[in-house]
């Protein structure tokens, strides 16, 4: 089912939280609503689900506006961050509850619960209470409960936040697998860019109640629409260097450091203040320009090693390289910079150049 938000507006106690937001999620697509906490992504989710009433605009399921319908009458499945399993019911009863409420017969209920349990791999645990299940199992039960009544759309509110790292990795692919197998339209709300990038077809990045950019993960990473988007995606994060365009394809930074600009920005007017974004993988591995500086902090991360390199004028760039332990803090290095892949933003507006 295709979900469309048209001029969706939400206020709390008169204060506008989301103002005329527009978004379309294609049928069978999995979209991530990514943003820092308080950006309005959970509010959006709860408005689609019908928990919140909206103060303007429309929410279309295909062609049908559901804005006036209460949560009970919208066919929406939700998985909450804390799973919200009913603690006094077994896993089976939890999953069967939506069917019972709809008056589905008991034989049919059992059949459908069994089916969904098979899909979510929780058949052995159906007789247990939530308190006797591990975090990952609870997550699967919550998914099964949300899916058992074949909803039009599946909403996931920070589904992995309560899991430890290892389980998170496992559930990431599990949720994606289940979504693919059922072909359901899904919206994932998260503040974790890795989650968003690894699980979703598209990402809508939000800040302060507005969507800044909607794009496929790779595209968004490669060509962020703004400084905020660039800073939000990528781990370890991008480093910004502020400076003034020299008019000759270079950037003059505060401490006397001069950096080359990508060729597409050659025509930039001299004196324009910009913010240059350098991702760690674009410094220290390959490229035309070379920059020399002193190594600061060295962070071995197993497969990779992360370096902080202090350049002239106290500008610190970050570099990520395949694991190496031949360098110590204090040593001077001269490393290549991949100029063409640098990102540039207007210093005042943050818009990509």
């Amino acid at each position: 089912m295709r979900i469309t938000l048209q001029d969706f507006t939400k206020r709390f106690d008169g204060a506008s939280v989301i103002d005329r937001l527009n978004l379309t999620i294609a049928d069978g697509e999995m979209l991530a609503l990514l943003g820092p906490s308080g950006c309005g992504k959970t509010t959006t989710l709860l408005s689609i689900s019908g928990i919140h009433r909206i103060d303007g605009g429309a929410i279309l399921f295909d062609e049908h506006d559901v804005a006036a319908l209460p949560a009970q009458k919208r066919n929406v499945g939700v998985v909450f961050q804390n799973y919200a399993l009913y603690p006094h019911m077994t896993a089976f009863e939890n999953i069967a509850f939506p069917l019972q409420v709809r008056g589905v017969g008991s034989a049919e209920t059992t059949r459908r619960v069994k089916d969904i349990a098979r899909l979510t791999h929780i058949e052995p645990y159906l007789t247990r209470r939530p308190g006797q299940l591990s975090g990952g199992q609870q997550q699967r039960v919550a998914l099964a409960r949300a899916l058992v009544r074949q909803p039009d759309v599946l909403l996931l509110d920070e589904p992995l936040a309560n899991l430890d790292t290892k389980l998170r990795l496992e559930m990431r692919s599990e949720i994606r697998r289940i979504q693919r197998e059922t072909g359901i339209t899904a919206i994932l709300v998260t503040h974790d860019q890795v989650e968003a990038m690894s699980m979703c077809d598209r990402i809508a990045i939000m800040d302060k109640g507005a969507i800044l950019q909607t794009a496929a993960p790779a595209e968004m990473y490669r060509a962020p629409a703004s400084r905020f988007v660039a800073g939000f995606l990528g781990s370890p994060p991008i480093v910004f260097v502020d400076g003034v365009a020299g008019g000759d394809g270079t950037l003059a930074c505060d401490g006397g450091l001069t950096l080359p600009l990508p060729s597409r920005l050659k025509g930039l007017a001299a004196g324009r203040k910009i913010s240059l974004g350098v991702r760690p993988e674009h410094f220290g591995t390959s490229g035309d320009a070379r920059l020399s500086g002193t190594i600061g902090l060295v962070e071995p991360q197993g497969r990779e090693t992360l370096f902080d390199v202090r350049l002239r004028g106290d500008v610190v760039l970050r570099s990520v390289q395949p694991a190496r332990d031949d360098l110590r803090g204090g040593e001077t290095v001269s490393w290549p910079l991949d100029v063409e892949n640098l990102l540039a933003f207007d210093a005042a507006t943050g818009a990509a150049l």
Partner: protein
Amino acid sequence: MAETTAALRALRPDTASRPAGGTRALEEPEATPRRRTSRLGLLMLAPTLLLLGVFFLVPAVLTGIFAFTTMSSATGISGGAYVFTANRLDALAGSGVPPETITELRTERAVVDAAGLAAAAKAGVDERFLADIKATLLGQSFAGPRDFKRALQALPNHPRRIFELKQAMEPFSHAILNTRFATRDQAAAAIRSVAPDIEPAVLDRLLSASYTGWVWTSENFVRLLTQPQTLRLCLNTVFYVAVTLGFSVAISLFLALATFYLPRRTATAFSALWLLPKITPVVLYAILWKWFTWEGGFLPILAGHLGLPAFNYMKGSVPTAWTIVIMVNGFVGASIGMILLTSALRAIPVQQLWASEVDGASRWQQVRRIILPQLKWPILFFTIYQAMSLMSSYEQIWLTTDGGPGNTTDVWALEAFRVALFDYTGNLRYGLGAAMALILVAVGLIVSLLLLRLFNFSDLVEQPRIET
């Protein structure tokens, strides 16, 4: 329970006023929260509102209303009638009512009219006799029963027996004395029938003097302000509340701190023991204190064995009576206080105490510098709350000293209760009692509102998050 600790943590003065919604609220003043009223919510709340309305709010309002009446067990509570008794008429003599009017009212007269004849026929008076009366006496009236009797005896068919004659006279009698008139108009008509020229002012006076029901008055408050007993009661109440409160706070604080630091087993034993005064039914608790201090009870016998003065400590002397009143109530207060302060103590993060011990603080410094400052609000809350309860409670005193010896340990609440509901003379003065209670109700209301302020009420009220 989580609720208490949350409540206690909320016990901070409402200092910082909350920012109003955010800046964007100012740009959109028209924005009204679109919240649908939950019909289920109204349905679920309705029985509670009904019960509280009828059995909590209405009593409170009635207390306020009836404080301004003369209502008592003599007047009844549901209105009255108009009756002239001999006593009332005597009292009216010399108060501006003409003596002849009073005499008229006393006079029992007889009038032979159609209504009287019909009533007599109904009462079974001999028909021939009635025919006689109708024929000869219809339209006449007699100034007294004696004249009427003589006239009747002159009739040919009059009954021989005095009893039957009296029975026949009754329907014609028009006495005002000792007759109940249900309404003011009936009473006025009756007076006019004997004194047609009565002045309206005199009529009014007569009518209000004859009214048996309650009337509006501010007399109760005037009386409370002028009678010397009021001062005594006030002083007693203040003394009682202040000393009992001090006793309770001191003991409960000591209990809470001691059980906090003592080894678990000892602590549990003592806190369980001190739960008893709170959970023991009040009557049994009072009886136990009676046994403890009454003559022939534990303490007097013990004192006797030790050669100390032994008598009924509860009622035998004023100082011992006060001591017992204070202890009886103070123990219950200490019980409540211990419960409250213990839960407040447990809410203090234990890391703070570890940190202070690492810093080398002694036990006493720990209590003074770390624990007591954090118990400030719970103690204040307990003090205010307990002061209000003590001020309005009378059960324990009523069941132990009953205000004695004499009325030395009588307090305001007990006196209000006795005046209105438990007077030994049998005349219950609801109006006066309500006036006394109204003062307690007013103080209680003010203090409850004060507590509400201290509670930081807004923190406890969260908007529902499901909006549909």
